[in-house]
């Protein structure tokens, strides 16, 4: 009898960059140079963040060259977009090439792939409410189908000055702390221990609750996405990764690494997000 082996999604590494920004923005160039060991030319804050987070996730390890990159962002590269638009419409000049090429959504993926010698597929995925979950689900599907054996899944969001205007742009309260952040996970099809077994979408709360009924409340904690602060669903224990963390649109991507850093072996987090229109996304992380 031959034992069929279904590939999983094992956690090989994780890494983050998070910094609250309220006035003069942190100079990322020395951080990037110290993290990567060399400066990277022709990039702005957004791509710098993506690179810093990815380097921290890999911690000097070399991923297989065919590692795929899945990347998401809440607000995208506002810096370069605003720069190009102002140059074009306010100043009346054509966009400068070095800015223009970085307006493409996959630019951050390109720099991550180039910096770490990756030649696998690279995909930037945008989804207003479920960006991280969408990228994660695609990576999990590719890993479990055997299409890929290794994946980097990441996110980044920047702050643009003036911060007060950016706060309005993100529909945050006037005193809400804003942050710049990047979060990355390295998943492999083979491994042991920590894993991201599942990521799903639900058309209704009833569908979500039916699925959640299969989890043991003694060994599962609940992580809650934006706007779900007081909802306990069917679980009594919660894992709070948002209190004390500045706001950025891709904050859900902080949940896996925050949980992995704090949880004990064998614990599971079930994370739930909503789009505010009755739909839900959920993923699980096992330490």
């Amino acid at each position, binding site marked *: 009898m031959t034992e069929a082996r279904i590939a999983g999604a094992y956690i090989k590494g994780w890494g983050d960059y998070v910094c609250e920004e309220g006035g003069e923005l942190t100079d990322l160039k020395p951080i990037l140079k110290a993290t990567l060991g060399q400066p990277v*030319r*022709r990039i702005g804050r957004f791509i710098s963040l993506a690179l810093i987070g990815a380097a921290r996730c890999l911690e000097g390890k070399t991923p297989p060259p065919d590692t795929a990159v899945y990347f998401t962002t809440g607000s995208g590269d506002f810096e370069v977009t605003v720069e190009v638009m102002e140059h074009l419409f306010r100043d009346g000049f054509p966009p*400068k*090439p*070095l800015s223009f090429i970085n307006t493409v959504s996959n630019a951050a993926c390109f720099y991550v792939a180039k910096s770490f010698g990756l030649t696998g597929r690279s995909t930037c995925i945008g989804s207003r409410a479920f960006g991280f979950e969408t990228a994660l689900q695609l990576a999990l599907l590719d890993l479990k189908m055997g299409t890929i054996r290794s994946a980097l899944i990441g996110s980044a969001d920047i702050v643009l000055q003036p911060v007060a205007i950016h706060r309005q742009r993100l529909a945050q309260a006037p005193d809400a702390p804003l942050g710049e952040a990047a979060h990355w996970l390295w998943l492999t099809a083979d491994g042991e221990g920590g894993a991201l077994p599942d990521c799903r979408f639900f058309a209704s709360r009833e569908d979500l609750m039916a699925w959640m009924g299969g989890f043991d409340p003694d060994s599962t904690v609940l992580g809650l996405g934006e706007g779900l602060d007081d909802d306990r669903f069917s679980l009594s224990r919660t894992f709070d990764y948002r209190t004390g963390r500045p706001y950025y649109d891709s904050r859900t991507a902080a949940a896996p690494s925050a949980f992995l850093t704090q949880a004990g072996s064998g614990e599971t987090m079930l994370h739930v997000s909503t789009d505010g229109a009755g739909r839900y996304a959920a993923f699980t992380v096992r330490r």
Partner: protein
Amino acid sequence: MSDRAQMLADLKAMIVRECDKEEMDPSEIGDDERLIGGGLDLDSLDALQISMAVKENYGVRIEGGPDARKALASINALADFIEAERGRSA
């Protein structure tokens, strides 16, 4: 500093700024050093960036092909090109 020397210094500073070579001191660029494909590690994308910056800062358009290769050969060549084009339109 003569007008010519000032122009060379300004062009070097412009190239360092526009091509994101900020780890480099502009004065490190030699007046006759090859700009594109040489030791400065600038490529065709940088050439386009420099051409657009010249148009914005000096009002001089660098056309593609042989003109661009000639104009962007070095800092001295770029200054010569700008002065010649300005003289032509004056």
